[in-house]
C-alpha cells in the first residue's frame, strides 16, 4: 500500500541479488527524488534518506538477497515514524482555549467552524472568537457560518486583535463554555509586528492549544513557516488543510520534522464536517505517491 513510486524503486532493485554500494546509492537518490516531487523540503528529504541508508546498512542490506523488501520496509517505517501518531486535543482548563494561527488563506476561519462542530459532536460546548480584525468581511464570514451551524460566537467589533481577545475573555458569558476557539488574521511568519501581536494574544489567552493551520499544497517554504511560528509561539499542533486536492502533502513531513509537533487534524473539504483526525499510514502513502 506504499504507492507506485516506491513500487518502481523496488522493481529496480529486485531480482538483482545482492546490491552493490552504487545500487544502494541509486535507490536512495530515487527515494529522495520521490520525496522532493512530493514537496518535502530538500534538507528534510536529505536527512530522511541518510537515516534510511544508515538503517539499511545496520540491517546488513549488502548481504541481503531481498534488498528491495528491506528498503521498502525501512522507508515505510521511517515515514510513518516521522509523521507520528494522531494526538488528541489538550483541553485541560476551564475554559480551554484553542488559538488558530497561520499564513493568509490557509483555511483558519473555515477550520475554526469545523473545530466547533467537531467539539460539539464530542459533547463539548464551544464558543468562537472572530479575532481577525484585518481582512475585509472576516467577521461576517465567521459570523454567518457560526449562525448557520448554531455555534455561539463573540459578536463585539473591536479594531485591535489583542484588545478584542482581552475583551472576549473578560466576558462572564464565557463561564458557560468549556472551549474557546480563537480565529486570527492570516499573517506572514516574517511580519514582526503581526507576530508581536499574536504573542500578546497568547499571553492574554494562555491557550491549551496553538494550532498552525497550513495549506497542504505548500512547497519548500513549509520549513520556514513552521520554524518561525514555532519560534514565536511554541505551537502545540498542526492542521493540514485542502487535503481533498491532489497535492502530495510533503509539507506535512517538513513541518513535523522541524517543529516536532503533532499533526492533529486534516481538512478535507469546504463543508463544516470536512475535518478528520490524522491517519499516519494514509498520509505516508499519499506523500510517497
Amino acid at each position, binding site marked *: 500500500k506504499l504507492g507506485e513510486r516506491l513500487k518502481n524503486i523496488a522493481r529496480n532493485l529486485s531480482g538483482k541479488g545482492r546490491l552493490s554500494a552504487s545500487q544502494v546509492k541509486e535507490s536512495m537518490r530515487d527515494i529522495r527524488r520521490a520525496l522532493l516531487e512530493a*514537496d518535502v523540503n530538500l534538507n528534510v528529504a536529505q536527512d530522511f534518506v541518510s537515516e534510511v541508508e544508515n538503517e539499511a546498512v545496520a540491517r546488513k542490506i549488502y548481504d541481503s538477497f531481498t534488498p528491495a523488501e528491506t528498503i521498502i520496509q525501512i522507508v515505510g517505517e521511517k515515514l510513518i515514524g516521522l509523521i507520528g501518531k494522531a494526538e488528541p486535543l489538550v483541553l485541560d482548563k476551564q475554559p480551554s482555549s484553542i488559538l488558530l494561527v497561520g*499564513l493568509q488563506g490557509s483555511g483558519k476561519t473555515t477550520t475554526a467552524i469545523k473545530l466547533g462542530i467537531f467539539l460539539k459532536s464530542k459533547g463539548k460546548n464551544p464558543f468562537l472568537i472572530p479575532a481577525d480584525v484585518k481582512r475585509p468581511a472576516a467577521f461576517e464570514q465567521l459570523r454567518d457560518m457560526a449562525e448557520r451551524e448554531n455555534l455561539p460566537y463573540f459578536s463585539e467589533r473591536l479594531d485591535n486583535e489583542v484588545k478584542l481577545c482581552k475583551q472576549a475573555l473578560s466576558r462572564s458569558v464565557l463561564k458557560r463554555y468549556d472551549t474557546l476557539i480563537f480565529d486570527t488574521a492570516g499573517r506572514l511568519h516574517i511580519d514582526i509586528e503581526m507576530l508581536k501581536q499574536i504573542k500578546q494574544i497568547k499571553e492574554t489567552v494562555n491557550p491549551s492549544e496553538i494550532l498552525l493551520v497550513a*495549506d497542504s499544497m505548500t512547497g519548500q517554504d513549509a520549513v520556514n513557516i513552521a520554524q518561525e511560528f514555532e519560534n514565536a509561539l511554541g505551537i502545540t499542533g498542526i492542521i493540514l488543510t485542502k487535503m481533498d486536492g491532489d497535492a502530495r502533502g510533503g509539507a506535512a513531513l517538513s513541518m513535523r520534522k522541524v517543529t516536532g509537533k503533532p499533526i492533529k487534524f486534516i481538512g478535507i473539504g469546504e463543508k463544516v464536517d470536512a475535518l478528520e483526525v490524522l491517519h499516519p499510514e494514509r498520509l505516508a502513502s499519499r506523500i510517497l505517491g
Partner: protein
Amino acid sequence: RNLFGKRDPKALVDFENLLIESDFGVDTAVSLVGTLEKTTPENYLSSLKKELINILNVSVGGNDYTKPIVELYVGVNGVGKTTTIGKRGWTLHGEGKKVLLASGDTFRTGAVEQLSKWGERINSDVVQSGYGADPAAVCFDAVDAAVAREIDYVLIDTAGRLHTRNDLMEEMKKIKKVLKRKREDLPQETILVVDGTTGQNALQQAKQFNEAIGITGIALTKLDGTAKGGIVVSIVNDIGIPVKYIGIGEEKGDLIPFSAEDFVTAILE
C-alpha cells in the same frame, strides 16, 4: 562540452539545490543546471540568469482589446483571487480606467461582502446577486452593466475550486461559455491566481485550469513572504502561460507587473 573541460561539480549541485529549494521541482532544476554544462564555472550564474529570463519572457498577448475588457479570475481556494481583483481594480483606476467588479463567487460565506468591501475601498461599483445565484448569470449582468455605463474593465471574481472537483470545473467552463456567447471575444483575459507558497501542485493546477478554460496569464501572490515561486518557471516552460502580475501584500497597491529580471534576481541572489 565547454572549451576548457572546466566544470565545478560542487557549484552545479549548489545551483540545483538552490532551484529545488525555490520550488522549481526536480526535473526543471536538473534540466536547467544541465544547460550549464556548455559553459565554464565563472559563467554559471550569468548563464543561468539568462536562461531563466529567456524562459520567462514569453509574449503577454493582446493590448488591442475592445471595451469592456473582461478579466476572469480563477484558481484554487484561498490563493488571493478576491484580493488580487481589488488590487487590479485600484491599479486600473490609477490609469484613469473605469472599473466594474463582478461578484461571481456566489458560494463561499462572506465572499460577496468581501468583494463589496473591496469595491468601496477602490471606489468601484460591484455587480452582485447574492448567494446561491448562478455565477454565469452574474457575469452576464456585469457585462450588460459595463456596456451601459461605458466601463473599461470588468473584473470577475469566482469561487475557489480544486481542479480535482469535476463539477466545479464544469461550472467554470459554463461561466466562460456564457461570456463567449455574450460576445465572441469575452473574456479577453483569464487569469489563474497562484499562491506563491505553493509547491509542485501549482503545475497541476495550471495544466487542469488551462485544459478546462484556457488561461491567458498568471497572477502569483504572496511573494512578500519567503517563498520563491519557482514553480512558475515550469508553468511557463511546459504550458507557455505568461506570468502577468505579482502580489506583494494585502493592500490595494500591492500588485505589480511581472518582471522576469527582478524575479530571477530575487531567486539567484
